[in-house]
């Protein structure tokens, strides 16, 4: 178990380094091939050459790419000082870079926005797990019934509706039409009820999409498992149907669901870009989208790193949970 964990952590670290390299590659090499000067894109369209040169110096853009990557890693642990002539900017550890567009260090931006996204993802996950799994299990147990057909039609529609459309619809009906919510985000530390009220629509909209996916997967997995020999054995032993379904079948059904949950939650915690854009929530996803539009590389790097970290950690947790849930899985 310990050896397995160490191996997985090592793989995760390698993956993070690869991701950082790829991000650097996308934003430094692709524009280079395309003949776009990064320093001038940081400064603005009509920048004078001296200003462009200063930015190039300060950000170390003329250094070879490996040196830039190294500086970035060093900054995370030791902090970093950007200097060009007399113009010095210090960014203390953990320095995930410094945005010269918004004149601020990236780390506070990340810590500011992270709770918004985390709240969105976790709240929605609770809803979609409850409704998705319940709908899927009931459909599987009552296969072919009206309930099953109805639930599956709703689920198929759910996966076919883009979240930015359901989001806009719900805003139009519940915020503008009925006036139940004000459609504004309130930070949790300001007021719990305000925060909760502002998050209800995003939660429900996001959860609807995922509940639909989870219901479909749960139903399919459950049907497959109900046909397995060990379920027949359990029934033959004379176990109560409740125990057969609740204990024996549910355990195996949870395995693929857990895999999905790990990936989905990881991806969402790293920024629910579409939901945050639709509902105008100040989370990581919104930050990274704005950064991409402004070509604000340091922000993109920082958020991508956090996102990837979230995905990797979520996957790791899931793999460990496998062994707990499914007795057939043994981690070697």
């Amino acid at each position, binding site marked *: 178990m310990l050896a397995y964990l160490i191996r997985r952590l090592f793989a995760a670290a390698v993956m993070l380094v690869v991701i950082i390299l790829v991000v650097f590659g996308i934003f430094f090499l692709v524009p280079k091939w395309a003949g776009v000067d990064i320093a001038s894109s940081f400064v603005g369209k009509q920048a004078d050459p001296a200003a462009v040169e200063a930015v190039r110096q300060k950000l170390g853009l003329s250094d070879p790419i490996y040196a830039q990557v190294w500086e970035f890693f060093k900054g995370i642990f030791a902090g970093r000082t950007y200097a060009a002539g007399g113009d010095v900017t210090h960014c203390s550890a953990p320095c995930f870079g410094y945005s010269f567009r918004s004149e601020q260090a990236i780390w506070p931006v990340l810590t500011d926005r992270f709770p918004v996204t985390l709240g969105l993802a976790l709240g929605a996950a609770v809803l979609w797990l409850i409704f998705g799994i319940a709908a899927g299990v009931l459909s599987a147990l009552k296969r072919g019934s009206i309930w099953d057909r109805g639930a599956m039609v709703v689920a198929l529609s759910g996966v076919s509706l883009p979240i930015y459309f359901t989001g806009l619809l719900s805003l139009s009906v519940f915020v503008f039409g009925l006036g139940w919510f004000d459609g504004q985000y309130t930070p949790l530390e300001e007021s719990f009820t305000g925060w909760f009220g502002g998050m209800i629509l995003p939660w429900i909209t996001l959860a609807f999409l995922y509940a639909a996916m989870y219901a479909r997967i749960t139903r399919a997995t459950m049907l497959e498992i109900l046909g397995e020999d060990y379920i027949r054995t359990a029934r033959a032993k004379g176990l109560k149907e409740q125990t057969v379904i609740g204990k024996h079948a549910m355990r195996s059904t949870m395995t693929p669901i857990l895999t999905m949950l790990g990936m989905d939650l990881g*991806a969402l915690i790293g*920024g629910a870009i*579409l939901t945050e854009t639709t509902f105008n929530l100040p989370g990581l996803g919104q930050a990274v989208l704005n950064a991409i*539009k402004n*070509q604000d590389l340091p922000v993109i790097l920082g958020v991508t790193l956090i996102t990837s970290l979230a995905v990797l950690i979520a996957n790791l947790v899931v793999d460990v949970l496998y062994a707990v849930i499914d007795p057939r899985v043994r981690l070697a």
Partner: protein
Amino acid sequence: MTAPLHEPTAEVAPSAAEEAAVAGTDAKAVQGRSLGRIAWERLKRDKLALTGGAVVLFLVVVALLAPVITSLYGQDPDAFHEELIDPLFGTPTGSLGGVSGDHWLGVEPVNGRDIFARILYGARISLLVGFLSALVAVVLGTILGVLAGFFGGWVDSVISRVMDGLLAFPQLLFIIALVSVMPNQMLGLTGSSVRVFVMILVIGFFGWPYIGRVVRGQTLSLREREYVEAARSLGAGRLYILFKELLPNLVAPIIVYTTMMIPTNILTEAALSFLGVGVKPPTSSWGQMLSSAIDYYDSDPMYMVVPGVAIFITVLAFNLFGDGVRDALDPKASR
């Protein structure tokens, strides 16, 4: 040409073929039916899947004929109709976002472009990106998946690691990032065509591991089958086994994953355009229309409903058809 060592055409998936053979015997007198035929007969009974397929076909025809239809309809998708706009609020005059005999689905706020014509042209972008990016993913996924499964060893290790890595990437983020750094001109293309081209490549590139994993798994198990061993013992070369024995048996899972991938890709294209990194005006795309509609969700809800419903119908039709195809090709699937 030598006679084929083995006749794999009847089989699409080996496990499927075995069960199909059983099913075939009790259905009619002993008469061979290919799995393709059995699948088609199952699909024909599936009313929902057929409806989905018909809608998909209709959409493809409409998209191809968009210029013809709009000229018959008499509206240009890029023509402004500012006379139909309320100068004070910027929203269309008249009810339901300016619906009239001339403008069936109303006009856009501010500039008054005809929504019906723009929806038709938007269908071209959606379907083009949806189909072609799936094609990119299928070609890459099949080639690399077969290579990994067939050769094993370090080839398999490398390809599998790359697939795992790509699947663990925050994909939407990278797709947005890649699409947004692309220049406005490349390879003789300009403006929207560059963006469409880049979207096809990038979405396809991030999609191949899904197909690659399945193809690799199938190849691994097929490689050890008796008929492959038989072919090998009769002296068949690697290429023969690859193309004549393995590939025909991979067709079913590839078809299933392709049909499931197209709607996802259509949603991704719409999402990119919604986020403002995909197709940009004046070229029309459903996602971009929805993104402009954010500002009018209270004053002109029709503007958001039309492209939203267009996306919904298209994706739903593909999903219904895809589910049907999967059930038809998989004898174990039971509804």
